[in-house]
């Protein structure tokens, strides 16, 4: 909304970005797809919670317990509004992975039958693939994959055929390896027509794009707080109310119950039915501060900023292509969020990352938890630079210079 802030001003809100590395370099953090940095406001929220009103929630009648309960439940409302959901449809989890597994165990074991199809894509993160392999194994269902072309663009021409018999479509909003944005506006209506339940792995969606679960018309949307300025250890599952109501509980224990007898238990209402044991209170509250921070910037601004950075990066790095730089993905900022996957000449991605590290530049190297995609593409590993709100063109300049340095080190 107030998109008048510069990335430099935003970076000043992130204490870690002001701290030089052990070699005295400025930290050029280009690994936000792995985890984002946290603004001071989020850190302060945690400190305030622990220093002023730490208490277990929901059952305490004393002052700090009431404050903890109210702030915790208000955090849920904040998060729900951010994605245009009802607060009863937002279940706290540790991360996107747990959210996806919750659906696998609770909805999946109840609904998926032998011979059913689970449709996913060739781009998926292990967290949105392995749970479905296990579910298929347990239920006798079959896994199918929407293919991706050489640039990581999903091929939708056979979509209806692939969806035939699909009980579940489980697909990521944005690929973490390539940054490609899934055309949910084409895939979701087709899945609806086929009668599939739709889960979107939003781990790389919600940090970078405006998300409206109603407009997307998805049944489940899973995501992690730590990739969207929030603390580690907190994430959420959005689920449509009717589906969540019909699902059996997943984890059992305190808080998710209504009445317990030695032999029998009735379960609590939504959302608590799926939240067993003491919640990650502090970090849930911290995530709400992160959401407030993003809301103040405006998600449209976030998207526009990353798009601009990616366009700049493609332009800035283009001259290196003749020297062996291979950039993966569609190379079209309209189709991609702030992620750039690449390799440089015969420099292995790990070596490249190590050399960049000496100049304070943080990129990820490896398979990015998408081993099957890497295998399919024939990339042993890639280096990945990923951008967020605090990154500026100067960071991309640093990256380009770092690659030049690698060329010198490797005598290319």
């Amino acid at each position, binding site marked *: 909304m107030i998109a008048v802030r510069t990335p430099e001003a935003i970076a000043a809100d992130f204490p870690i970005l002001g701290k030089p590395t052990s070699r005295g370099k400025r930290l050029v953090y280009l690994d936000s797809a792995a985890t984002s940095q946290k603004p001071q406001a989020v850190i302060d929220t945690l400190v305030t919670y622990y220093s002023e009103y730490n208490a277990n929630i929901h059952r305490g009648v004393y002052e700090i317990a*009431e404050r903890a309960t109210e702030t915790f439940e208000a955090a849920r409302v904040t998060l729900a509004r951010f994605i245009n959901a009802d607060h009863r449809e937002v279940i706290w989890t540790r991360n996107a992975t747990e959210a996806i597994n919750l659906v696998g165990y609770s909805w999946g074991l109840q609904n998926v039958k032998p011979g059913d199809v689970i449709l996913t894509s060739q781009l998926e993160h292990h967290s949105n693939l392995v749970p479905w392999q296990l579910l298929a194994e347990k239920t006798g269902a079959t896994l199918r994959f929407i293919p991706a072309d050489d640039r990581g663009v999903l091929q939708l021409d056979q979509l209806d055929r692939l969806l035939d018999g699909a009980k579940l479509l489980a697909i990521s909003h944005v690929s973490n390896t390539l940054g490609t944005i899934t055309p949910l506006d084409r895939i979701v209506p087709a899945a609806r027509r086929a009668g599939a339940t739709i889960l979107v792995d939003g781990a790389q969606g919600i940090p970078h794009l405006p998300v409206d679960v109603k407009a997307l018309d998805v049944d489940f949307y899973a995501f992690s707080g730590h990739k969207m300025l929030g603390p580690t250890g907190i994430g959420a599952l959005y689920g449509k109310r009717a589906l969540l109501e019909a699902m059996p509980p997943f984890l059992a224990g305190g808080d998710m119950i209504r*009445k317990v007898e030695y032999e029998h238990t009735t379960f609590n209402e939504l959302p608590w039915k799926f939240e067993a044991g003491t919640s990650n209170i502090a970090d849930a509250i911290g995530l709400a501060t992160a959401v407030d921070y993003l809301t103040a910037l405006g998600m449209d601004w976030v998207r526009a900023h990353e798009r601009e950075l990616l366009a700049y990066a493609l332009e800035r790095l283009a001259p290196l292509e003749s020297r062996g730089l291979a950039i993966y993905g569609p190379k079209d900022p309209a189709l991609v969020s702030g992620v750039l996957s690449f390799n440089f000449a015969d420099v292995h991605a790990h070596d490249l990352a190590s050399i960049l590290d000496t100049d304070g530049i943080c990129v990820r190297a490896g398979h990015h938890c998408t081993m099957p995609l890497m295998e399919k593409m024939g990339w042993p590993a890639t280096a990945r630079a990923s951008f967020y709100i605090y990154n500026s063109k100067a960071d991309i300049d640093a990256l380009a210079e770092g690659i030049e340095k690698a060329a010198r080190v490797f005598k290319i």
Partner: protein
Amino acid sequence: MDDFYRDFILDHYRNPRNFGHLDHPEASAEDLNPLCGDTIRMEFEVDGGVVRDVRFSGKGCAISQASASMLTETIKGMRLEEIAKLSKDVVLENVGIGISPTRLKCATLGLRVAKSAAIGEIAGWPDEE
């Protein structure tokens, strides 16, 4: 909260009005506060859409029991439709003092039960879930 426990509240707690059961209630409902285990049951004698008599039973804290006791006095003679539309203000007026959010759940337990008894009867639902 200590100023909450005035004489008339303690009186309603220790000598609840309309406590017990009706022989043939036309409408009834029961609920529990899952956070503390307090329970309340409400039974109505209904005639021409009007609650002629009411009994409540249950166990719990002074806030929930006194609030329920006072509520029975409020709703006796009311039309089911009126009861169904009651807001928590009726409870706050009865107890006459602000309550913290957690304890508000205690205070409104009786109201929730009375409303669901009324709504259930209006809708012709079976009088027990």
